[in-house]
């Protein structure tokens, strides 16, 4: 099979289109690249959707955690503690077991046991907890003067939050949030190793990479290819988030702008 044919056959294999059987026998470099790249679709799907939905819950959690009323504060604190204090790997296993037993109760829970929904929900809660903590930290470090100025203008409640608190919180949290996004995408590789079945061998990039490594007993080809794809993805995330960061800091003089600095302390 030529490389073009391979791409035609396997480019969307992870979604169930194209050739049914995975390649056999001698594996070409082209097959490695196509199939692992095809698996990346799932990583991007999980990462993007969890990040987009998790953002809103994270803001709610941050506001809740900074609330003086324990009725709002306690649930937010506990939610963040449970999801940040336990390994994502165990969370996946636990959620899968939960959904599996709920499936016996009602048909409604059928889709929850497949990765596309069940794992997405876990990732959504997980990233909401991590980013919620980041946003909460940013909320605490909003300059006092900003709030006082808003008060002096007579802004209260929702108006003050929308015009002053929220934009400043975003600006302060953004560098850390960029890291969170990167490591969320890394965390998506855990999905198919943690209970959620890869139905008809429709898996993510790491699933295919480990498939090749198991078959050929040669880790030196598939994993560097996976690394290549993920480094590309990381660079893409950094550039998109850097663009947003520049917009958030637009009004500030050059030396006060917050720079995105890659830190490594957010893997879960």
């Amino acid at each position: 099979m030529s490389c073009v044919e391979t791409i035609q056959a396997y480019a969307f294999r992870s979604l169930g289109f194209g050739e049914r059987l995975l390649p056999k026998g001698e594996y070409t470099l082209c097959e490695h690249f196509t199939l692992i790249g095809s698996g990346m679709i799932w990583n991007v799907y999980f990462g993007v959707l969890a990040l987009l939905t998790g953002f809103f819950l994270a803001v709610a959690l941050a506001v809740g955690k900074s609330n003086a009323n324990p009725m709002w504060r306690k649930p937010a604190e506990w939610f963040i503690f449970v999801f940040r204090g336990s390994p994502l790997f165990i969370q996946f296993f636990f959620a899968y077991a939960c959904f599996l037993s709920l499936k016996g109760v009602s048909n409604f829970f059928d889709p929850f046991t497949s990765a596309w929904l069940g794992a997405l929900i876990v990732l959504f809660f997980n990233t909401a907890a991590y980013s919620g903590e980041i946003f909460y930290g940013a909320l605490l470090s909003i300059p006092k003067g900003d709030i006082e100025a808003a008060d002096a203008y007579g802004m209260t409640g929702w108006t003050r939050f929308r015009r002053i608190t929220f934009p400043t919180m975003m600006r302060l949290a953004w560098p850390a949030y960029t890291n969170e996004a990167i490591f969320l995408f890394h965390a998506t590789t855990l999905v198919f190793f943690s209970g959620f079945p890869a139905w008809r061998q429709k898996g993510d990039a790491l699933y295919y990479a480990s498939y090749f490594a198991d078959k050929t007993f040669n880790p030196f080809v598939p994993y560097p290819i996976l690394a290549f794809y993920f480094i590309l993805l990381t660079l893409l995330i950094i550039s998109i988030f850097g663009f947003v960061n520049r917009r958030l800091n637009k009004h500030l003089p050059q030396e006060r702008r917050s720079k995105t600095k890659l830190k490594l302390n957010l893997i879960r």
Partner: protein
Amino acid sequence: MFSYCTDPSTLEGLSWLSCYLTTGKHMNLYISVFVVLVLLAITAPVALLFGFGAASAARSKFLPLRWFGMGYTSIVRGVPDIAFFLFFVIALDQAFEWMRHKVKCPDWDQPIRQGIDFVVCDAAKLPLSTAPQWVHETYGFFLAVLTFSIVFGAFAANVLYGAMRAVPRAQIETAEAYGMTSRQAFWRILVPQMWVYALPGLSNLWMVLIKATPLLFLLGVEDIVYWARELGGTKTARFTDYPHPNWHVWYFAALLVFYLCFTKVSEVALDRIMKRLTKGQATAGGEAQRKAAA
């Protein structure tokens, strides 16, 4: 385990549970908790050592060494750590076997990679095919520890590199003014002072390391996740005295609670260490402590 456990089908409630939780397989589960603790106890210092080496290498004046340090620390940024775990376990195993092969069987003329097989001579196999079971298990655990140390060493290197740069320049200049060589200044001034800057990052890393321990399961070690899956599955009366439906939920809930307690305890302990270390330091934290005491 208890004397009344001889016929579990007659038991009810708590006494049944006490028997159920002390079966031989559950003992394996409890032992695997110690496996996790041993892994942490070995990995943390070794990773710190790797990290210290790499951070020092990244500061070196010798260019290739600096490249090595920089490359080692930055490669983990872009790639998921789990990919490293899966990669290193096979790669290290093959590297060891290949080296032993070169030493022990110099007159072997066939290629090592034959198509999709990796073939070394019998004497170079690790562990030897005649070795007892516990050697195989220990070797697997050793590979896992080494893999964890390499990956977390890279993270630690990043933290320590930052901490070394955070030590005020004036401290080194003072040391040089006293006539210390750069090696003396490094060991006597920089290294003792960098820990307070490194601790927030290192404690974060410790939390991450705790939360990475379930990945042992993926490396083929029989750890708590393995036993939770094994014990939680549906058991019929034919194979066991304690039949039960699928209890995965309860086992994983227990693991979840175990990890939550573990991270909470670590958090409290690390807070205490941080308080101890900041005492008398020229940082914002130290200043706050001084003001509170006055």
